[in-house]
C-alpha cells in the first residue's frame, strides 16, 4: 500500500455549462477578531501593546519557553459566549481546545492553540440587508484561538533577507466566526461584516479601531445558478479560491471584486479553475497565487493536553445581551423619529449610535439632527478617513445648537464642521465651533445688513435687474446667487428672498 496518497485537487469539469448570465457568486467568510480583554488568552500579559516596542508584552508562557503551561482567560470565554449567543448559535455542552500544528516563526510553540472538532458554538445566523431584502446568513461555527506573533520581513518583500519577530501579539485572544457560503456578492459580504462588527461592538467585546484587530479569509467561487442549493457545499463543480490575509473592512469588498473578475475571465476563456489559496495584496488591490506548499498543509489537530474541556453552555443562559443593532434601529425610529434609512446608518455603527444616544434629548428628536449626523457628519468623516470617536461630543452639540438657534445657516454649519475636522485631523484638537464661526465671520446676517450688499449687487448687474423688470424670473435667482456668493452663504435664504424682492419691486418697472 502507498501510505501517503493525498486527496486529488478538485478540478473543474469542462463539460458544464458556462453561460455567464446563468452563473452566481458563492461567498463564505472566516472572520478573526481580537477579543478586547485586558490580558492574553493563556497568560497574564497585557493586550495593550500597540504603542510599545517589540517584545515588551511577553512572558515565559507567550514566548513559548519550554516547561510553561497555558491557562484559559475566563473573560475571553465569557466574551466568546456573548458573541455566540448574539449570533444565535448553539453552545456545545462540552467544547475543548486543540493544537493546530504548523511550523512558522510567528508561532511561539510550533503549534497554535485553537478549537477544532469541538468548538465553543455551532449553527447560528445573522440577519443582514441583502441584495434582495432581508437575508439570513448562517453561521457554521464560533471558536476561540490565540493570535500568532508579528513578522517583519527585512530586505524587501521581493527577496527578504531574514525575518524579525515580535511576540507582543502572540496569545491575544481571537474569536473565529465561520459563515456558510450564503453570501452572493461582495456588497453582501461587506454588509455582513459591517453588521457583524456592529454586533461585536455593541456587545463590548471588540474594538474595530485597534489596528490589526480584524482578519478575514474569504472562500469564493462562481457556480451555475441554483447549483449550490442542489448540491450543497464541498462539491464544487468549479474550483474555489480561498483568499487569505484581508485585514480591513474595505479590503474585503475589493478583494472579492477582484477575485470575481479573475474567475469570470478564466471561465470565459474556458480555463480550468483549480481550488487554490490566494493572498490579498491590499496595497495593489489584487489577489496573488500562494505557493503550492501551503495547500498541502496537514495541521494534525489533536486535543490540547495541557487544558481541560469547557462546559459553559449553562453560562449562556445567564448572559443578558445588550440592545443590539436591530433593536436600536427600531428604537431610533420610534424614539427619535428617524427614517428607516437614517436609522440603519446611525445604528449600524456602535460608536455613531452611542454618539447619537448621548445628545441632549431636544436635539436628538429633531429630524434635522438625524440628517446632520447620518449624511453630513458621516460623509465628512468618511471623506477624511476619520472616525466618530475623533469628534468631541461637546463641540458637535454646540455646532448643532448654533444651527438650531439660527445663529448660523445650515451651509455655514457645514463649513464650520469641515474646518473643525481638518484641524482635528491635522493637530488632533480643534477650536470651539463658536470661535470658528467668529474667525470665519459666518454669523448669520440679519435683514438690516443685507441692504448694502443687495444695492451693491444691483449696481453691478444692471442687465439682470432689467431682465427681472421685464418679467424673466431666472434673473431673480441669479441675483440671489450673487448675494450668497458675496456673503459666503451666511445670510438666511428666506430673509434674503424677502428683502431682495422688496428692493426690486420698490424700484418699479
Amino acid at each position, binding site marked *: 500500500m502507498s501510505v501517503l496518497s493525498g486527496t486529488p485537487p478538485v478540478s473543474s469539469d469542462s463539460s458544464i455549462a458556462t453561460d455567464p448570465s446563468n452563473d452566481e457568486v458563492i461567498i463564505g467568510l472566516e472572520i478573526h477578531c481580537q477579543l478586547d480583554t485586558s490580558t492574553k488568552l493563556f497568560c497574564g500579559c497585557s493586550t495593550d501593546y500597540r504603542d510599545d516596542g517589540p517584545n515588551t508584552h511577553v512572558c515565559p508562557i507567550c514566548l513559548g519557553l*519550554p516547561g510553561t503551561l497555558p491557562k484559559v482567560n475566563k473573560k475571553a470565554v465569557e466574551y466568546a459566549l456573548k458573541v455566540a449567543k448574539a449570533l444565535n448559535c448553539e453552545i456545545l455542552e462540552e467544547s475543548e481546545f486543540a493544537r493546530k500544528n504548523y511550523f512558522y516563526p510567528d508561532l511561539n510553540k510550533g503549534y497554535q492553540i485553537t478549537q477544532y472538532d469541538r468548538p465553543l458554538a455551532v449553527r447560528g445566523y445573522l440577519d443582514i440587508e441583502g441584495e434582495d431584502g432581508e437575508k439570513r446568513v448562517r453561521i457554521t461555527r464560533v471558536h476561540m484561538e490565540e493570535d500568532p506573533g508579528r513578522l517583519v520581513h527585512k530586505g524587501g518583500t521581493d527577496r527578504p533577507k531574514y525575518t524579525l519577530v515580535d511576540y507582543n501579539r502572540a496569545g491575544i485572544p481571537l474569536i473565529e466566526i465561520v459563515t456558510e457560503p450564503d453570501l452572493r456578492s461582495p456588497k453582501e459580504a461587506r454588509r455582513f461584516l459591517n453588521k457583524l462588527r456592529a454586533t461585536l461592538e455593541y456587545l463590548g467585546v471588540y474594538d474595530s479601531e485597534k489596528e490589526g484587530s480584524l482578519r478575514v479569509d474569504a472562500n469564493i467561487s462562481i457556480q451555475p445558478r441554483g447549483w449550490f442549493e442542489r448540491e450543497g457545499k464541498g462539491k464544487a463543480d468549479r474550483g474555489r479560491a480561498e483568499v487569505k490575509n484581508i485585514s480591513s473592512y474595505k479590503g474585503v469588498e475589493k478583494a472579492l471584486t477582484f477575485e470575481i473578475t479573475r474567475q469570470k475571465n478564466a471561465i470565459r476563456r474556458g480555463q480550468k479553475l483549480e481550488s487554490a489559496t490566494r493572498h490579498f495584496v491590499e496595497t495593489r488591490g489584487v489577489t496573488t497565487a500562494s505557493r503550492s506548499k501551503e495547500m498541502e498543509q496537514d495541521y494534525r489537530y489533536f486535543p490540547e493536553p495541557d487544558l481541560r474541556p469547557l462546559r459553559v453552555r449553562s453560562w449562556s443562559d445567564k448572559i443578558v445581551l445588550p440592545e443590539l443593532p436591530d433593536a436600536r434601529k427600531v428604537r431610533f425610529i420610534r424614539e427619535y423619529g428617524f427614517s428607516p434609512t437614517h436609522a440603519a446608518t446611525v445604528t449600524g455603527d456602535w460608536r455613531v449610535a452611542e454618539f447619537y444616544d448621548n445628545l441632549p434629548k431636544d436635539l436628538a428628536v429633531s429630524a434635522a439632527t438625524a440628517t446632520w449626523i447620518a449624511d453630513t457628519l458621516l460623509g465628512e468623516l468618511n471623506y477624511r478617513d476619520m472616525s466618530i470617536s475623533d469628534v468631541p461630543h461637546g463641540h458637535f452639540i454646540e455646532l448643532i445648537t448654533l444651527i438650531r438657534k439660527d445663529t448660523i445657516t445650515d451651509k455655514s454649519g457645514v463649513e464650520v464642521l469641515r474646518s473643525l475636522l481638518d484641524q482635528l485631523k491635522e493637530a488632533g484638537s480643534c477650536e470651539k465651533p463658536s470661535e470658528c464661526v467668529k474667525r470665519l465671520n459666518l454669523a448669520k446676517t440679519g435683514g438690516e445688513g443685507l441692504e448694502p450688499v443687495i444695492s451693491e449687487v444691483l449696481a453691478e448687474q444692471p442687465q439682470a435687474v432689467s431682465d427681472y423688470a421685464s418679467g424673466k424670473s431666472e434673473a431673480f435667482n441669479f441675483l440671489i446667487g450673487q448675494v450668497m456668493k458675496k456673503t459666503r452663504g451666511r445670510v438666511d435664504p428666506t430673509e434674503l428672498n424677502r428683502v431682495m424682492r422688496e428692493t426690486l419691486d420698490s424700484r418699479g418697472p
Partner: protein
Amino acid sequence: MASQVCRFDPEDNYNAFLKTVGKAPYEGTGKLAGIPVAVKDNISTKGITTTCGSKILGGYVPPFDAFVVELLKKEGAAIVGKTNMDEFGMGTTTENSAFGPTLNPCDTGRVPGGSSGGSAAAIAAGMVPMALGTDTGGSIRCPSAFCGIVGLKPTYGRVSRYGLIAYANSLEQIGPMAGNVTDVSTLMGVLCACDSRDSTTYDRPYCHTPDINVRGTRIGVPEEFFGKGVDPKVASVVWDGISLLERLGAEIVTCRMPSMSSALAAYYVTCTSEASSNLARFDGVRYGPTSDTKKQWHESFQDHRRELFGKEVRRRIMLGTFALSSGYYGKYYAKAQAARQNVKADFDRLFRQVDVIAGPTMPTIAFKLGEKSDPLSMYLSDILTVPANLAGVPAISVPCGRVDDMPVGLQIMGRHFEDEKVVDVAYAFEQGVSA
C-alpha cells in the same frame, strides 16, 4: 533568611549528573533543610542550564523555576545538580542522552534504566539521598527498579507540571525518588501542592506518614504482569515479594487485565503524537543554539532539527507526526485513545475488587550497555509500567530481591489519589524485607 551552603561531593563516577553545584545554597529550616537534592534535567531551574539531555537546548538557562523547584527551595532543600536522562525522556536506558550514557552503580557494564537514570544512579551511588524524576511511561519506576532504589509516579494531576519540559503532557508526572520509602514519602509531601498555573492539577496535598499495617489490604495480581516477555527469574522473585505481603496480612487476588494487550501500542502512539507537537518549539529563534538566519526558514528548521536532535527523538517525532496525519489519525491516534479508555476501565473494574495491584516493575533486570539497539525491543520493555500512565493512577517501585546480583523492582499501583496507599504497601514490604 540567611543562605547556608550545603556541601556536596560532585565526584561523579557514573555520569549521573549533567551539571553539579559543589556548594549549593539553601535557605530556611523546612522539611528538607540542608538536604542535597538532585533534579532531573527536564525540570526548569532558574539560572541553571536545563537541557533535557539534548543538544537542542544546549546552554539554555530558564528565567524561572519549575513549581516543584520553588517548593524544594521553600523547604530548604539544596539543589546540587541536574541529572542525566534520555533525551527529552525518550528512552528506557539513559543511553539516549546527548551527553553520554549514565552507568548503573550496581554494575557499570549495565544501564541504570531510564529515562530518569541520572537521578536513580545518583541515589544508588550515595551521592544524594533523594532526587526528582519524571515518569511518562515508567521513567521513574524503571531506573528505580534497575538501580535498587524507591521511586513513585504520583497520580496524574497531583504534582504540578509547570516548568517540566513537556514530552507527553497527558501521561507524565514529576515524582520523588530516594533510597527508601520514608524519604520518598517525605519528598512527595513537599511536591504535592496546589499550583494555579497547571490546569491539569488537583488540589490534593499529601500529608502522610507511611503506615506499616497491610492487614486486610487486598492486592490484585494480574496474570498479564507475569506473561510473555517477563523473565521467569524476575517473575519468581516478585512472586516471593507478593507472598511476603500475604504473610504480613494482605489478601492476594489473582485477576486479569485484558486491556494490557493494546496498552503499549496505545502508549507509544499517544506519547509520540504529543511529542511531535511539543518538540516543534525548538526552532532556535528564542533560546537554545540559534538557527541559521542566512537560510530559508524550513531549510533552517530541518537542518537545526537534524543536527541537534538525537535519532530516537527524531524517530518518535516522525512516528507521532504520522499517527496524527490526515488519513491516519483514526487508525492510530483515535484508536489509541479508545485503548487508553479501556485501560482506565480495567483499572476501575479491578479497583472495585482490590485496593492495590502488584507485579514486577520491569520484565527483566537492567540491560547491558548497548543491548537494546532495536527500537521496538526497547519499547516492549515498558509494557508493565505504561498502564499506570495511561490510566493516571499512582505507582511505586520498591526493591524486591535480586536476580543475577542485579536489583529487581516490585511495582504497586493504586486508585487515583491513593498515593498514600501505594506508599504504605511499599513501606510494609520494605520493612518486612529488612525485618
